[in-house]
């Protein structure tokens, strides 16, 4: 079966939350049939790599199969958190969009469930 690579934000959506120096980022599949792709490809290792410059001390993935969602917890990625970081976005609210840039390999049969990407003629 032929496959193609798309950014994660076409497969799933998510939101960042923060508590202290810890960030959590949800990743919610747009469709139940896309969920296995997330489990297989959006791993703790892959996410740690995406956030390498933030030096996470630990990345934990929690699976919520009934919600077709997962929750990533990234420890020590906020340069101290909302009161200590020098970042304009000291909560790290934008970080979900860094995670959602991870490329995902999608079989053609599932492309009809992707969202966005209207300029791509192969998209439904």
């Amino acid at each position, binding site marked *: 079966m032929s496959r193609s690579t798309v950014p994660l*934000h*076409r497969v799933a*959506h*998510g*939101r960042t*939350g*923060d*508590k*202290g120096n*810890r960030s*959590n980022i*949800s990743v*919610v599949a*747009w469709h139940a049939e896309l969920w296995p792709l997330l489990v297989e490809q959006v791993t703790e290792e892959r996410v740690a790599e995406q956030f390498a*410059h*933030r*030096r996470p001390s630990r990345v*934990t993935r*929690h699976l*919520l199969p*009934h*919600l077709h*969602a997962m*929750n990533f*917890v990234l420890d020590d990625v906020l*340069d101290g*958190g*909302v*009161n*200590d*970081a*020098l*970042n*304009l*976005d000291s909560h790290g609210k*934008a*970080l979900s*969009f*860094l995670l959602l840039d991870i490329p995902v390999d999608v079989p053609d049969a599932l492309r009809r469930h992707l*969202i*966005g990407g*209207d300029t791509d003629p192969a998209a439904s």
Partner: protein
Amino acid sequence: MVDSPLRIGCAAGFSGDRTDAAQPVVDALVASGGPAVLIFETLAERTLALAQLARRANPDAGYEPLLVDMLRPVLERCLAHRIRIVSNFGAANPAGAARRIAALAQELGMPIPRIAIVEGDDLSAEARRPLLRAALAESTAVEVGLESMVSANAYIGAEPIADALLAGADIVVTGRVADPSLAVGPALAHFGWARDDWNRLARATMAGHLLECGAQVSGGYYADPGYKDIPDLAHAGYPIAEIDADGHCTITKPPGTGGRIDQHTVKEQLLYEVHDPAAYLTPDVVADLREARVVEVAPDRVRLEGVCGRERPSSLKVNVFREQGWLAEGEISYAGARAESRARLAGEILRERLLHLGKLRIDLIGAGSVLGDDDGRWLAAQPRGEARDVRLRVAMIHAERLQAERLPREVTALYTCGPAGGGGVRTALKQRLSTLSCFVPRGDVPTRFAFLEPL
């Protein structure tokens, strides 16, 4: 036990939220005709520390600055229809907030409501220092000085809220309570659940969790054009949870408002600020979301099922804020040909001028400013681009105010000493509040409520 559902509407998700949100929510609660409560959640982590500073400057201040703007449009209608109001807008001065609400009722020419004040969360008194020192020593493993402490508050739970409502309060004003407890308290009082009915408490907790950020469950903070389109966010409807006697809830919003509630908006908010979904810790219960399901039952109506609970933790979380040093920031814009290189050069000049003062964060707004790290690893790894509209932003923290003031001066001096065409300098110098978290035994934080004495 009471069987009729309880409707809880939420009209604010943080201090500074829209103040015209409450009216449509109250209209919908009135139209439903059943028992209903209105909550406002206005205390983010650092809001309380800022409120303590405000109270230091003025003993009558220290509660939500928008209190009157939030309540004035709906206070009379809520009281007339027995819609009770529960909020943490008391912040660092719940009694002050209660007095202000009573005064507002007088201004409006309405009967003075029975206002309950929840107490016990504030641990900043001198007498509580040994408790804090012991708890901080355990959580931080280093000696922590409390001389510069601004605030110390425990996250307390729903019980004093429920007790106040059962005693006949029309309005319950709290300081720091766990956000979902604003909904759990009314549910406890309404349904008469046992206080160790962990499953029902966990379900009401997650209903409160879905409500606590206001429009974040009804399309706010969700929209992404072409990917996640949401209608009429300019008039987003704030959420209402219909809670049944088993604690399950259906989330909806007032008719005719903007925004949307569907399975995706609810899932994003359900996991917001959750860490381990098997153990969402609150002072009331440990909620377990692993079997949670969301079901779209009608347009803008989503039901949450499958949440269960376990016994609440034996300790309470405490946030301690201290005044520590100064945050200095400065910005200057470059536009047109080679704008990015000129902004980068300005950053290098500032780094050299300020090197001896410590770490300087450099951002190139328009080319890279948010996803990077304070040490500049991310920015250094980006290829130099050709951005034609870039705002340089620099920031540093210094213990001494006089030293921190060097940064705004150096940024301003770029007007004459920096690269060509720099404009629009803005600088800021703010005292910095640093946070520490620790845990104290529940028994060391007695909570209670008291009714405001008549004016």
